[in-house]
């Protein structure tokens, strides 16, 4: 909402500067987002006094000595013939730019140097009524900024009005607040002081009424509780007087003509939308407030043809729609230069109805914006009277008749407030009298009964229905800064940390330590490569039609981010994210789960002069990271890796439960990129099911923790101390020929099972294929470490174990490499 500082001052002569008004409104009412000097172009102009003047022979020019407050008298040449010694004039120093855009330069004329310019009204864009330079009637000292002397420096105040306070969408509304804050009484703006008295007839009816040659009918009073109109005859449509044009322009509007400007003045001045119809163009001289007919169309003032339907409310004449009610007028009944008679509409439309109409029409106007949020429905008769009188005055017309259809709004219900409640909510006792005074200042009618206040909201306030609403009024008008802000004690909360949060922190610590970057990308996806598209959740109104789905896998998001990096020639990519994934469930709400995923590709380590090209990440790195991730995610659980197929390297399991997988990630990658590997792990569901029904709670109920969620909440069993060895270890290696069909894990498992209790460690240390190794087999070598707790093992004992193991391995078709 744009406000004019000057206009506000006419409503409430507060005497505050724009900066003071900004600070007061921001502290007590709504935030002022900006101040904009409307004549900032006059800022460089100062007051200067002519101390000597001399005519230049044979010219109109004069050579002057000018005091501009700089302490040095300046030589200035002037072309006007009204220079008077001792008078003060607006002065532009050389180097400055005047409002016409002309830059004032030092110049030489006939041997005289001119160091600036004494300005005319024209040059200052203050109108061209006067001849010659602009004589100032002021006591201000030379050098004073011109704007300080002349009341031209209106400032636009940009107020951020939130949806609960439509009453602030007018100068009157904001003036009321300023009046409450400063204690300065509201005044009638001087431009409205000498409006003609209305001596016209008023015809009234609940559903219809007529007068001044028009008839008004409202079909449904729910859509339009009140419709008033004035018939104004004999108008002349022409440019607005200066004050009206200035007012309209001061709030950022464009002056159109006297009629339109007058309605806009009422809108911005009093917050009451109005519309003027050309009476001659209303078919059948009738006005009907009704729903649009199916297939009906209307060309609105902005020139576009709009298809209407019965959910939309229109103002119609006897034949067709002539305006979108509360939104915009029609082109056909627009006021033009040829208009002589006007019907001025002031009405109350239902907020919901205006919202529906303007949404369907796909436009928002100053009028619809206010109706949607709520206008002062009690003000309609005064607004009509004032608007009609103003319009008549600026257009030379005559108010012929007033028509009023509908009913005055019902009186507002009082809200009860206990003074003790004020203290409880604010943490500060506000005396009863002060509460009453503050509410009274804001227009509430207050009745005090003991320690209880009955406060009836004024007709312009639609946001006050409970005691806390009154407490807010008291708190803000009194000032939030007056409330104490010392920390006091508190009881400990009853809510434990969410297990998924602690899991996230554990995982993040582990993966950051492993050298990975945490990312927070968008979860939208095209759906490509994510399997069955119907299992994805689709955003109904997506931001981008090519990414309408929510991801079902974080790894998919990370893959796209890796491609983004590859496109920027970045091949060493190590990313992880802990976040939500989504799945569609037919007939049910989407299923949301938290996952953790990581992706690695490129060098395993940074390059160094000792190793210019370190090896790239491979499947074994991915497996190790998967183990790191799983250990952080599921404290105390044992995760097993089962060989996968195709892109899936391993399926991760806890017991029989599938918990995640390690994959090769296929990317749209340039040839130089190395292979990408990914891990994705499930952390548990984040349910959107209701905790309890609306208005109920489920305190004390403990939802069961099952599946992956239980793993996340597991605890690590404390490590039992193992006595440090006192005896030396004995080792031997087994180089084995293993058929391709036999997994190394099976061999290792067998070694552990049959190695006996003295077997301490089994380590695979080599894999070899090729020379000396038969087709269809590979050579794998393990080092086995044995240790007896009390004595040194004898060579013979080790030999015995070796042959025992080799014998057992025969069952797998594994034999020693010769």
């Amino acid at each position, binding site marked *: 909402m744009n406000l004019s500082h000057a206009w506000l001052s006419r409503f409430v002569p507060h005497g505050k500067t724009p900066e003071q008004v900004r600070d007061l409104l921001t502290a007590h009412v709504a935030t002022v987002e900006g101040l904009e000097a409307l004549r900032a172009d006059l800022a460089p102009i100062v007051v200067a006094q002519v101390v000597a003047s001399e005519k230049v022979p044979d010219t109109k020019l004069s050579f002057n000595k000018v005091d501009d407050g700089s302490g040095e008298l300046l030589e200035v040449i002037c072309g006007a013939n009204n220079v008077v010694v001792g008078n003060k004039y607006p002065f532009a120093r050389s180097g400055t730019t005047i409002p016409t855009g002309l830059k004032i330069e030092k110049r030489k004329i006939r041997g005289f140097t001119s160091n600036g310019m004494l300005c005319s009204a024209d040059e200052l864009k203050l109108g061209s009524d006067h001849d010659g330079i602009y004589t100032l009637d002021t006591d201000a000292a030379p050098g004073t900024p011109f704007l300080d002397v002349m009341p031209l420096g209106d400032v636009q105040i940009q107020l951020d009005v939130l949806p609960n306070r439509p009453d602030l969408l007018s100068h009157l509304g904001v003036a009321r607040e300023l009046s409450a804050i400063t204690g300065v009484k509201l005044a009638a703006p001087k431009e409205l002081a000498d409006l003609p008295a209305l001596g016209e007839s008023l015809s009234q009816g609940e559903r219809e009424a007529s007068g001044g040659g028009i008839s008004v009918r409202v079909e449904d009073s729910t859509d339009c509780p009140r419709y008033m109109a004035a018939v104004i005859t004999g108008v002349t449509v022409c440019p607005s007087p200066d004050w009206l044009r200035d007012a309209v322009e001061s709030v950022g509007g464009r002056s159109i003509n006297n009629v339109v400007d007058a309605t806009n003045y009422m809108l911005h001045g009093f917050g009451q939308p109005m519309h003027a119809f050309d009476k001659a163009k209303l078919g059948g001289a009738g006005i009907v407030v009704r729903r649009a007919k199916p297939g009906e169309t209307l060309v609105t003032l902005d020139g576009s043809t709009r298809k209407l339907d019965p959910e939309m409310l229109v103002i119609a004449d006897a034949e067709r729609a002539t305006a979108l009610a509360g939104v915009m007028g029609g082109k056909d009944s627009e006021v033009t230069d040829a208009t002589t008679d006007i019907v001025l509409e002031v009405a109350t439309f239902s907020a919901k109805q205006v919202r529906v109409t303007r949404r369907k029409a796909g436009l928002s106007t100053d009028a619809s914006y206010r109706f949607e949020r709520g206008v002062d429905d009690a003000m309609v008769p005064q607004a009509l009277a004032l608007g009609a009188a103003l319009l008549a005055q600026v257009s030379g017309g005559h108010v012929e008749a007033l028509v009023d259809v509908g009913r005055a709004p019902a009186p507002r219900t009082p809200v009860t407030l206990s003074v003790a409640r004020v203290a*409880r909510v604010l943490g500060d006792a506000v005396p009863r009298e002060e509460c009453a005074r503050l509410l009274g200042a804001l227009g509430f009618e207050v009745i005090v009964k003991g320690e209880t206040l009955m406060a009836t909201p004024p007709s312009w306030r639609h946001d006050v229905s409970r005691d806390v609403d009154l407490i807010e009024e008291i708190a803000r008008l009194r000032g939030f800064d007056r409330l104490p802000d010392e920390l006091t004690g508190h009881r400990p*909360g009853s809510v434990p940390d969410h297990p998924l949060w602690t899991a996230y922190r554990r995982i993040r610590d582990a993966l950051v330590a492993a050298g990975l970057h945490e990312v927070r990308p968008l979860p939208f996806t095209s759906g490509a490569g994510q399997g069955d598209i119907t299992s994805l959740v689709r955003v109904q109104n997506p931001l981008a039609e090519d990414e309408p789905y929510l991801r079902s896998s974080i790894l998919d998001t990370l893959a796209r981010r890796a491609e983004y990096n590859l496109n920027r020639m970045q091949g060493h990519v190590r990313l992880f994210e802990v976040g939500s994934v989504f799945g569609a469930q037919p007939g049910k709400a989407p299923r949301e789960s938290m996952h953790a995923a990581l992706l690695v590709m490129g060098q395993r380590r940074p390059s160094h002069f000792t190793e210019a090209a370190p090896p790239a990440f491979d499947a074994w790195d991915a497996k190790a990271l998967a183990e790191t991730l799983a250990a952080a995610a599921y404290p105390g659980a044992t995760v097993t890796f089962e060989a996968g197929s195709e892109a899936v390297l391993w399926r991760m399991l806890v017991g029989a439960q599938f918990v995640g997988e390690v994959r090769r990630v296929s990317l749209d990658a340039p040839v130089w990129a190395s292979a990408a590997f990914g891990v994705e792990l499930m952390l548990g569901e984040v349910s959107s099911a209701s905790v309890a029904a609306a208005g109920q709670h489920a305190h004390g109920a403990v939802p069961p923790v099952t599946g992956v969620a239980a793993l996340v909440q597991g605890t690590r069993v404390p490590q039992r101390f193992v006595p440090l060895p006192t005896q030396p270890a004995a080792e031997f290696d087994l180089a084995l020929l293993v058929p391709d069909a036999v997994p190394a894990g099976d061999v290792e498992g067998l070694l552990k099972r049959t190695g006996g209790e003295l077997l301490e460690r089994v380590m695979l240390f080599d894999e070899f294929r090729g020379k000396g190794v038969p087709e269809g087999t590979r050579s794998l070598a393990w080092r086995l470490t044995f240790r007896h707790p009390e004595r040194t093992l004898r060579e013979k004992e080790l030999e015995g174990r070796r042959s025992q193991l080799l014998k057992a391995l025969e069952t797998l078709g594994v034999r020693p490499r010769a």
Partner: protein
Amino acid sequence: MTLSEYLDKLSALEAQAPAQIAGADSIDALATVKNALLGRQAGALTALMNALGELPKDDRRAAGAGANKLKVALEESLELRRAQLAAQAANSGPTLDLSMPARDRWQGTVHPVSMVIDEVVEIFRELGFTIALGPEAEQSWYNFGALNFPADHPAMDMHDTLYLGQDQVLRTHTSPVQVRTLQQYAPPIRILAPGNVYRRDFFDPSHAPMFAQVEGLVVDEGVSFADLKATLSHFARRYFGANIKTRFRPSFFPFTEPSAEMDVQCGVCGGAGCGVCKHSGWVEILGSGMVHPAVLENAGLDSEKYTGWAFGMGPARTAISRHGIPDIRILYDSDVRFLDQFGK
């Protein structure tokens, strides 16, 4: 030479040798010392051993044993020192150019938005807050209705919503966690709820369709607006510095009443006004207010017995301003050149 004279000479040698050995600061110097002690020609101990013959026959055995013992001890000391010097030479030999770079490891990083969330969480943890979470795909009722948004009202226009279905939305704020928590747990409630929220906003330098929020909620008997002010001002002092000035100004959220926005004095201009603070001298940090009684009632709580306050803040704004990030989009791109900067 008598035996006692001989033993005195041995003792003198035994006393002075350790200093000589320790004083050798290179392998070469040690060789010289060794030569001076044990050298076949010039060795001091060698000379003494050669002089055994000058002693009376009966004393030779005792003197010889003393000389041999000293010889073994000196050889040990010399070998120890040699090993020491050799190790030193291996570590700091002239072949090692110490100006060469260290062998780096990949540096992992926490996302800059997560860093801000961590710091906020840290401060509120000191005040007894715990962490609650809720779904991002949320029921409309939790996102709007339970939070006292009037149906089909312009207040909804402040939340341009991404819809998933009839009654399902991508949550537009973390405030639904307030209602879920109040339904699940009995007061006293002191929680923070960090998480992602969504708006149908296209990317521009300061807007994104998804961003993080941190919600805070306190509900108990006797909780007041003064507590809100005290706690949030304390937070501001802990986060921005002990001398930071704060101000509270009226605002509007359907789920709080009274509502207030908290600003801190602009750190760039110190309150004088600059481009960063839009010439107001203040920077908006968070929205807050007393929990609307309707919200407590929607969660099945007695709104006369309990009062509460809540706040919400956007950590991305803080991250952007403190790191000087010109465009919010880079927080989402996951460009490793950007992320690497936070590991330094």
